[in-house]
């Protein structure tokens, strides 16, 4: 690999990580199309690279959320039984599917992600519905209102079902799957958005690790491409999280929705 390709992958990872964090997507959704369409990396290798980048960003993000006590760790461990099972099955399946099939599946995934991104932006930011008669009581300190938010969890089987599917998509297509889990945990189990986001992120590293070894065993990991992309995404996501506290642009969401739709068509036609 030339030094130019290496630099382009590092830079691409950085940009994917930054915008992924800004848009609440994680790095994988943007990294995989970049590697496949622009850098001509084979689909399976791009997925494996993204899985490793997802482990790095999720682990780094979870450190902060754990220290702030926003993560509902017991709920996270319970849902991990579903995501890990889904991811292992997804990882095994992906390695037996043709790259063109995975490209088409990823293209479909981008359509759903575009829709969910718009939904997240326009969902009301009013007071959140909190259930106090569910199970697994937890609390966290809301820094904006300086008050302790106490909540419980209801309808765990529904969240476990969505986690199983999200884990499967993660193993199959190399993304974190948070974009599916967070709305599901919020709507189906009445978990406050902040706690749902932190708990989902906490689970993503383990979910990604659940298929990473399978991709490694199939020889899908190129050490130079994967290391440079993972470092780029990691650095980008740290910067992206800092910027996202200052920028909340609906224009940015709309621009990227169009970008994702264009990428989706490109991947479908490959």
């Amino acid at each position, binding site marked *: 690999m030339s030094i130019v390709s290496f630099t382009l992958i590092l830079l691409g990872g950085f940009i994917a990580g930054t915008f992924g964090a800004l848009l609440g997507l994680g790095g994988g959704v943007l990294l995989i199309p970049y590697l496949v369409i622009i850098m001509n990396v084979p689909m399976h290798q791009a997925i494996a690279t993204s899985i490793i980048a997802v482990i790095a960003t999720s*682990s780094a993000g979870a450190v902060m959320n754990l*220290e702030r006590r926003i993560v509902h760790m017991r709920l996270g461990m319970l849902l991990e039984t579903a995501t890990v099972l889904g991811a292992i099955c997804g990882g095994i399946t992906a390695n037996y599917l043709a790259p063109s099939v995975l490209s088409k599946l990823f293209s479909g995934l981008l359509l759903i992600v575009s829709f969910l991104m718009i939904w997240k932006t326009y969902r009301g930011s009013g007071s959140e519905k909190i259930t106090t008669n569910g199970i697994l009581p937890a609390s966290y300190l809301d820094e904006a209102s300086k008050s302790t938010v106490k909540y419980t969890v209801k309808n765990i089987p529904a969240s476990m079902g969505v986690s199983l599917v999200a884990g499967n998509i993660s193993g199959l297509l190399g993304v974190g799957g948070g974009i599916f889990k967070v709305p599901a945990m919020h709507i189906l189990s009445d978990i406050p958005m902040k706690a749902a986001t932190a708990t989902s992120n906490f689970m993503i590293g383990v979910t990604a690790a659940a298929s*990473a*070894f399978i991709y490694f065993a199939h*020889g899908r990991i190129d050490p130079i491409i994967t290391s440079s992309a*993972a*470092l780029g995404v990691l650095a980008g996501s740290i910067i992206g999280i800092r910027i996202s506290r200052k920028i909340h642009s609906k224009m940015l969401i709309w621009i990227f929705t169009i970008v994702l739709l264009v990428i989706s068509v490109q991947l479908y036609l490959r």
Partner: protein
Amino acid sequence: MIEVKEKTEINHHGVELWASRVLRLGVWISASMMIIGLLCMAVFPSTIRSTDAPSLIALIEQIFSGNFNSTNLLFAGLIVLMFTPILRVFTVLLGYIVERDWLFVAISFIVFLMLTGEIVYSIFIKG
């Protein structure tokens, strides 16, 4: 009664802190190994070996036998990163054992067992 409750909450936070320490350490160690590996490759291109992924066991054998080129350093960094979340699950499992929360000991153990199964499967298909 209040004292017992406070003690439980402190312990509970203890598990979270240990989990975050494991993750932080894993990310730092692996990122450092990858940065050093990539720098070595850029400065000493002769240290680049085949980038075909070795088997997990072959890689560990190579590292312990002192065959430590920059490609192996990158692979080792990636492996450390891949093991980091699994070590986090194990840490949480130990934390729940200390807390004597047997339901969550069982749940964490199931997650840990599935991840171990994945590694065994990977070794089985690659050697």
